[in-house]
């Protein structure tokens, strides 16, 4: 705790290393999305078509890029950038949404971004991460309900929205937080506040 007095002042400007590492994280998440696209959609869809909206739960995995990038990089726009880039990777490899993947990436990223902005980009601990996952889930549900499930009844819309939020909290928020913590422990994030924090605590 004595190190707090020499803590460097927080800068919200992106350094080059922030941009490049955010890109690496975004791309890595994009590759994960590609695997998830096949596993979740192509294999799971025939079964999930029968569910009254619970499919939103597993869709939470598509939200991890934004939260993970934000809690590691800790700059304004990080969630939006990470999620959008992961969406680009997903579309480039080839998925069932094409250009519209970018719309999803944009709205999902904005949802997470909004939460970190409300915390004034000063708090990237567990609670904001979980809330960002939830907000990202909410914006994903809205986008999906408008783009693909426009004719759905009230029950489906409600269940889908709640399931997406829960999925976002668990698969995006919690998982990203655990992952960031594990990454910090390896020392690979030493050039970031997220990494130095863990080192200082040891």
């Amino acid at each position, binding site marked *: 705790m004595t190190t707090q007095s020499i803590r460097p002042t927080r800068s919200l400007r992106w350094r080059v290393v922030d941009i490049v590492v955010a890109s*690496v994280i975004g791309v890595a998440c994009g590759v994960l999305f590609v*695997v998830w696209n096949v596993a979740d959609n192509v294999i799971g869809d025939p079964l999930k078509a029968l569910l009254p909206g619970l499919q939103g739960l597993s869709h939470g995995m598509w939200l991890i890029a934004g939260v993970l990038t934000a809690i590691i990089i800790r700059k304004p726009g990080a969630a939006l*950038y990470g999620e959008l880039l992961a969406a680009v990777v997903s*579309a480039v490899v*080839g998925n069932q949404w*094409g*250009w519209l993947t970018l719309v999803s990436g944009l709205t999902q990223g904005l949802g997470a971004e909004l939460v970190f902005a409300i915390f004034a980009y000063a708090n990237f601990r567990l609670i904001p991460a979980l809330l960002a996952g939830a907000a990202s889930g909410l914006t994903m549900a809205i986008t999906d309900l408008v783009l693909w499930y426009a004719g759905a009844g009230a029950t489906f819309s409600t269940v889908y929205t709640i399931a997406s939020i829960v999925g976002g909290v668990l698969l995006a928020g919690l998982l990203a937080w655990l992952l960031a913590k594990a990454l910090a422990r390896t020392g*690979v994030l030493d050039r970031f506040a997220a990494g130095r924090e863990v080192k200082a605590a040891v």
Partner: protein
Amino acid sequence: MTAPHVIARHDAESSAQSSWWTSVNPIARLGAAFAIALCLVLTIDWVSAATALALELALLPFLGIRPAQFWRRTWPVWLAAPLTGLTIVLYGETSGRVWFEFLFARVSDGSISLGVATMLRVLAIALPSVVLFIGVDTTRLADGLAQIVRLPARFVLGALAGLRLVGLLVEDWRSLELARRARGVGDTGRLRRLAGQAFSLLVIAIRRGSRLATAMEARAFGSSKERSWARPSTLGSRDVTVMLLGFLVGILSIASSLLAGTWNFIAS
């Protein structure tokens, strides 16, 4: 799924298409796909979706995409569309006669017609979105995003640098596999090994990214000087035509549903 494979497929896709289409700026394709989606997303009715689908299929031959390639890229859409329709048949807004009820599912006249409309609508929105993405070159996309859409150049080029690492990551994945075998770890428990190995790969990727950032900074990447572009990206008359055609498809679909009286705004 491996990157060299993706890149190879990418090249094959580009060369397989007619030359005029490959020269269309990726930003124009993006514009066309978004114009169609923006118009169709407003309504859920079978007339607008069917009109759009018919127009799209009529325009498709001009893109010079080989049938094999078309089906390879779009089959998930053909699979997803009827399944999404099925979801709406079961859980869509109820109206008219109710045919079948089970737990939350309620199949009625209204939900059946909404389901059919949904199936056509998913096809009409997703097909052009996927087809217009076939053969998009990421470098040209980045050039267009930075120069035409005016996204911040540092981020666009950083993203491009990140994408270029994918090829290296595939090699890293192989070395990790070999190293783990040599050490005799991870021979059992496939899922656990995959998760552990994916984490190691992420660590390597971030480490490489940090080094790449230093190298890029050493070459004055991210300086405040104004950037010049080695590959200028502009929109020509051909690109504008493509975007206008996309917009036309959307407008004609809306007009057809208004004329037929089936217009059904999604929020109502």
